[in-house]
């Protein structure tokens, strides 16, 4: 599904050179639910950006669904993101001026799908997160948990092969976070591959595999060890 080999990423300015990722090699099988943990600045988000084709990398090879995506143009990467990848962001990233229906519609519009099919998919996606009845509401009229559910509907509406979640529960209280986590687990159970960045050890412990980042390296991939360390820190 996703295979990274010796991926590294260096951010350069005129004065500073920052090694964000160092020699990352990773294989993610279809249907896996992986969590990424690590302290701030360790490269989790950079990894997620590269995995989601939001950012280019300096060295290494990346195969997505068997396709080498190292040399794709900006246009091709956008199309691939639209068709194969769903994103869930910590701050939900909903468009405040669009109602829920139009928010979920955003990725489908870029796919050039016909209106009737879009409507059918949007209604199903909103129904799956329990917000169909509020599709004409604006994001500001919803709670944080509800907004994140809309973001999940938006990520799922295009039926992506895998879902990237950047601290999806980071801005939610524990009860709401639990609801979102259950929703993600049910999505994974339905066959969608998920990579989730989180700071929360308890959430990390619920994934089949946890990858711990330190200073741009993958420090450990054993869930028990890493989660144990995180619990000790927290």
């Amino acid at each position, binding site marked *: 599904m996703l295979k990274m080999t010796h991926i590294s990423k260096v951010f350069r300015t005129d004065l500073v050179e920052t090694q964000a990722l160092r020699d990352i090699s990773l294989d993610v099988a279809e249907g896996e639910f992986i969590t990424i943990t690590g302290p701030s600045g360790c490269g989790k988000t950079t990894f997620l950006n590269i995995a989601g084709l*939001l950012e280019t990398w300096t060295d290494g090879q990346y195969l997505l669904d068997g396709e080498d995506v190292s040399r794709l143009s900006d*246009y091709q990467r956008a199309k691939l993101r639209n*068709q194969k990848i769903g994103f869930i962001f910590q701050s939900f*990233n909903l468009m405040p001026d669009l109602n829920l229906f139009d928010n979920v519609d955003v990725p489908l519009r*870029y*796919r050039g799908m016909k209106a009737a099919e879009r409507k059918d998919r949007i209604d199903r996606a909103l129904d799956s997160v329990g917000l169909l009845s509020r599709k004409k509401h604006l994001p500001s009229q919803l709670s944080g948990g509800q907004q994140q559910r809309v973001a999940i509907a938006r990520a799922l509406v295009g039926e992506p092969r895998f879902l990237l979640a950047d601290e999806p529960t980071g801005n939610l209280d524990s009860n709401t976070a639990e609801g979102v986590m259950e929703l993600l687990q049910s999505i994974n159970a339905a066959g969608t591959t998920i990579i989730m960045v989180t700071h929360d050890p308890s959430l990390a412990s619920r994934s089949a595999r946890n990858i711990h980042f330190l200073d741009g390296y993958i420090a450990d991939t054993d869930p028990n060890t890493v989660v144990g360390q995180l619990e000790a820190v927290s």
Partner: protein
Amino acid sequence: MEFGPILRALLRNKLGVILIAVQIAFTMTVIVNAVYIINQRGELMSRPSGTDEDNLFYIRSIGFGQNFNEEVTAADDLARLRQTPGIVDATVINTVPVSNSGSSSAFLLEPGELASSVPSAIYYADHGSLNTMGLELVAGVDFTEADVLIRESSSNANADTVIITQALAEQLFPEGAQAAIGQVVYTPSDQAVRIIGVVRQLQAPWPLWEDIENAAIFPEIVIDGASLYLIRTEPGEQDRLMPMVEEMLGASNEQRILRQLRTMADTREESYRIDSVMTRILSIVIATLVFITAMGIVGLAVFSINRRRRQIGTRRALGATQGSILRHFLVENAIISGMGVIVGAVLTVAFNMFLVQTFNMPRIGWYYIPTGMLALLLVGQLAVIGPSRAASRITPALATRSV
């Protein structure tokens, strides 16, 4: 196309949209009416006088000596001028077209029928006038030397033949120029004159006169102390001949002074100076308004893009190509500009109605409205293209940044 969601989003942020739309509407109102006025002035200024203006100049001879004989001097001067190489012809005339100074009268079909009189500018000139001015005779014949009456300005005697313009002929005789030939018409003082020729065009001296195309030439030399010589040169000879003619006439008779050595082109420029200045001022107003409006659109676009950088990054993450983002902002601006030009079209018509009623201006041509709308839409799109391109280059990675 994201027309629907963009429109709905814009309607939720009305203030900025309304301000720019109103600015576009007012700009369109002023610009369209200003362009209309400029075009009107342009048409006015570019109307031909019917003469060979490019090759015409004139000079006034004013006698002062006790022995000065204007009639003899004029005959002598005309003979000298006509013999000068490079000069096509010369005439002594009371005024020149487009000079803003001259005489007018009227013609009647029957004596005393003032109600049916047709107004006309009056030129008094000798038999060389048609050839000098380069007028095209469309019917009848030119004057001969025998037709020319030499009279004092105080005399009431008038020549009994006249050559008129086609426009005047058609007003007097709707059958046309040919029908006018040989007809006798009357002056307001009931003097009969016979039309012997019709020229295609000769404008009256007053550019803003509504009957500017009505003119008549009487074969008369009026002795009033000053003779105005109108001189036509071969093409390209004017600059060389003007100082030469002044020197030649000055040397030939020391009992007079020479004044007003000027070209017809200078006379036209001076007569239309106010129109020309108004055109320039309106052009500056148009350019300024377009610039300010374009800057307003750029400002709104830049503000809107800076406010929505995260949203743009998110759209890119969700699959928007750079072209999609560019298109998004162009469509957004087209909607705002579209609202502006629709309101602008209504205001333009209303403002034009005000101008028509207040200043007696002609009604604006219908095609000015769609042309103005398209022009403003184009200005809007051009103004927003830079900020939109900048927006399209926003990295999708911005979606995951926390700040």
